């Protein structure tokens, strides 16, 4: 006797849910989500940009007796600005290329080969991620300046006077920036690389190619979109770097746009109109380049995550193993091990001496941190803004990425461009825009402003990372869900989201760190109740108190690592 639960072969189908409905808008809910996403994004991004646009036609900021002018746009073409622009581009292009190469290589080693120290490498990348740019620059000034540790070792210890390091140069800036930005390249490429179909590489390997050739001829072309994403991200990150060029470029007479803007906004007499103008011009350029990148690459990207099933059989490195290990070890040493040591050293001495045996040691830097009441509050604020804000940023980023890559409702291209606009504006100029526009709103002076500012500023991190992974997921997997009875919401939640998990993790990590490290934007809109740790560290640092700045950096880094490990539950899982 057949129980009434068996598969009734004679076609007693399940109650049909087919309804004849008039219009194609059965996903009214999805449409509403899309509209809401668009509206939120537009509000977050247009408001400060509009303020900047307004400001670019004024001789001064709000509250000053400013008048309308075209002078700022005229000054954009002055030789000084053009020169600075060229320098910035050269530095940024080189930084971007080297960072992407290093980050991509390490991601490849971790996710496509049988490299033996994967967990350590990921840990090293994660840890170097935590170094705020100016702390890294500070450490490298201690190490590589004319009076620094490396030169002391060379001349006093090894008696070599012909080779002398001078970090105060274009090379020095690129060097530190590459160390600083490589983790971003790693994380951008990680998601798509780890979910790629292994059989594609195995075919090449079976044809007799060595790992180099496999990487060059198979992996790289398939990873075109993520690699281009990475190049672009690194390029823009480099353009807006402020602290590293400020610390290392100024003594060497190297000026970048970001330091130029900082000068225009932060020092007397300020020229905020010109700053807004430069910021807008940069944003137009990067917005356009991202748009162009999408159009070129979108067509050609073949999905490599398909339901066909993939098995991650790692490739054998063979005799390349030693070279790979040395390369990764070097990176770890230069990006955080040696700088950490320099940092610890700086935190326990009264004033700088190159020879540790001659230094005056003290614990007072750590004492001063406990005694500062603002620091504990700053830490809590940082957790809320970075930890909680990153969730908002991730949700918005995911909705945007899905809308622009899959959903493609009318207006999606506009959303894409909108979301990438803040990419090219340095943090300090966005901060300016937010200050000007939000000062009239009641949320001013609360953590919400910081959260909004960060979400807007770093939106492209989320959309790029998640977008790259969305592209890699074959459309047919969702179609299978639809034909199995799941509507678009259910198919998104049950199929798309679980498959996006690596990118969601990377994205959250990226956003958390970005929010955590951000100084420039926050500096203009924070108040005492919303002070964050980066501000604290920067303030100590700017006032000759490198000792306390180092001590605070160390403490916060350690605590944050512990927290991130707990949140991500085995962040070292490869």
């Amino acid at each position, binding site marked *: 006797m057949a129980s009434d639960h068996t598969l009734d072969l004679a076609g007693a189908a399940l109650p049909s849910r087919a309804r004849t409905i008039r219009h194609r808008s059965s996903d009214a809910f999805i449409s509403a989500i899309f509209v809401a996403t668009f509206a939120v994004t537009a509000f977050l991004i247009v408001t400060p940009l509009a303020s900047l646009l307004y400001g670019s036609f004024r001789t001064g900021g709000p509250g000053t007796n400013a008048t309308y002018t075209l002078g700022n746009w005229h000054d954009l073409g002055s030789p000084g600005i053009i020169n600075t622009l060229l320098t910035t581009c050269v530095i940024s292009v080189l930084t971007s290329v080297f960072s992407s190469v290093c980050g991509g290589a390490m991601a490849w080693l971790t996710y496509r080969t049988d490299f033996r120290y994967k967990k350590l490498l990921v840990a090293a990348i994660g840890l170097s991620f935590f170094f705020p740019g100016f702390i890294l620059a500070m450490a490298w000034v201690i190490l590589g300046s004319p009076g620094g540790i490396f030169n002391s070792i060379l001349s006093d210890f090894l008696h070599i006077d012909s080779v002398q390091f001078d970090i105060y140069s274009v090379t020095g800036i690129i060097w530190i920036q590459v160390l600083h930005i490589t983790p971003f390249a790693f994380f951008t490429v990680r998601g798509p690389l780890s979910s790629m179909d292994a059989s594609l590489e195995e075919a090449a390997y079976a044809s007799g190619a060595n790992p180099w050739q496999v990487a060059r001829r198979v992996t790289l072309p398939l990873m075109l979109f993520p690699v281009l994403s990475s190049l672009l991200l690194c390029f823009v990150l480099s353009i807006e770097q402020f602290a590293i060029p400020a610390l290392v470029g100024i003594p060497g007479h190297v000026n970048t746009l970001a330091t130029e803007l900082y000068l225009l906004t932060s020092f007397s007499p300020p020229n905020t109109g010109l700053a807004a103008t430069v910021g807008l011009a940069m944003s137009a350029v990067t917005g356009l380049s991202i748009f162009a990148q999408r159009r070129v690459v979108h067509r050609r990207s073949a999905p490599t995550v398909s339901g066909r099933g993939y098995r991650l059989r790692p490739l054998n490195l063979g005799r390349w193993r030693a070279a790979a290990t040395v390369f990764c070890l070097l990176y770890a040493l230069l990006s955080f091990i040696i700088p950490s040591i320099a940092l610890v050293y700086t935190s326990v001495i009264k004033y700088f001496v*190159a020879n540790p045996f001659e230094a005056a040691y003290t614990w007072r830097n750590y004492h001063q941190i406990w005694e500062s009441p603002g620091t504990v509050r700053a830490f809590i604020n940082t957790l809320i803004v970075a930890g909680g804000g990153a969730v908002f940023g991730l949700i918005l980023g995911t909705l945007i990425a899905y809308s622009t890559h899959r959903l493609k409702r009318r207006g999606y291209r506009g959303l894409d461009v909108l979301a990438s606009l803040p990419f090219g504006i340095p943090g300090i100029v966005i901060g300016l825009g937010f200050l000007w526009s939000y000062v009239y709103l009641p949320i001013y002076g609360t953590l919400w402003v910081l959260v909004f500012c960060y979400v807007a500023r770093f939106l492209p991190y989320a959309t790029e990372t998640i977008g790259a992974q969305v592209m890699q997921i074959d459309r047919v997997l969702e179609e299978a869900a639809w034909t199995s009875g799941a509507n678009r919401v259910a198919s998104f939640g049950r199929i798309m989201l679980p498959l996006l998990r690596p990118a969601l993790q990377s994205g959250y990590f990226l956003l958390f760190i970005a929010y955590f490290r951000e100084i420039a934007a926050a500096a203009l809109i924070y108040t005492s109740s919303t002070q964050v740790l980066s501000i604290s560290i920067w303030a100590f640092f700017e006032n000759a108190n490198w000792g306390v700045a180092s001590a605070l950096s160390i403490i916060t880094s350690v605590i944050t690592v512990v927290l991130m490990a707990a949140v991500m539950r085995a962040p070292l899982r490869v």
Partner: protein
Amino acid sequence: MLRRRTLLSLPMFAGIASTAHAQSTDWVKVVEAANKQGHLNILHNTPPPMGDLWLAEFSKAFPAISVEATRLGSSELMQRFNTEYGAGASQNDVLITLWDDTLAKWQQNGWLRSFEPPEAAAFPDRYKRDNQIYTIQLIRSTIVSNKSRVKEADAPKDWADCFDPKWKDKFGMDPPWRSVAIQEMLAVWDQLGIKDVAQRMKANGVRFFNGSAGVIQAVIRGDIQIAGVIDPPVISALADGAPVRVTYPASAIPAIATVTMLPAKAPHPEVGMVFLNWSMSAAGQQSLVDIVGATVTRPGTKPPKLVPGLDGQKIVLSTDVLTPAKQTAIVNEWRSVFGLQ
């Protein structure tokens, strides 16, 4: 509180006494009101952690008032106040920042409160501007050299010595487009008759560093050997025992003023008045010296240890020498010479 009968019987003395008492009576009321308001919002530019420690002294003196401080660089601070006050969103009771022409504009706009605290009587007039802007601290510029690398005999004694070719690539400073103090220093050099400064500095390989902090660090590290720089970070370094030597030239010492002001509209006006008064009191000024290492303007305050006090020094104030036109001229000239314009 004296009774009227007693007052009337001693006309003149009584008159003065009554004024004084009436004032102190009013002042007592102000303090009472301040204690009731119980909260201070202060926007200042004193470097941490000394700034917090100095404000803690105020809290000790007025335990009923809790303090919330926002610390910003002076330029950012002025921008912030501009934007906030212009939008009617200013939440601050007291402002402490460097003197700048912008402050005069605030006066014109009527954004500052006219108020003379009792302690102001002890200050010379040059430090009081329209009873609205009070100079409580001076930041002097000096010549600094690295003791381990520069012998006492070779060290520069006055500003002109810094241009000597023997200091090629070894002299450092904060660039003028980045520092009002340096602009003031250059204006003073101009007044002293030192010409073509920008070109000569460039020819002699001047090195720029990020802020006075960066400059001092560079001197200690040995990246440069001498520098022209403001003295607060030098005093901290000396206190730590760092091998730096500080020289205050006899010809002139450029100084920029740190001023305190009260916004016309504030959430806790009386608290602001009480703080202003305390910052100008002997106790407040001395604690500024002891904790922050500042050079204060109240006559009779003990100078910071390790450096000479104001007596006998030819101080040239920025308020007297540095006009906005001059600022712009200096910045533009230097930016052109160094290829940034």
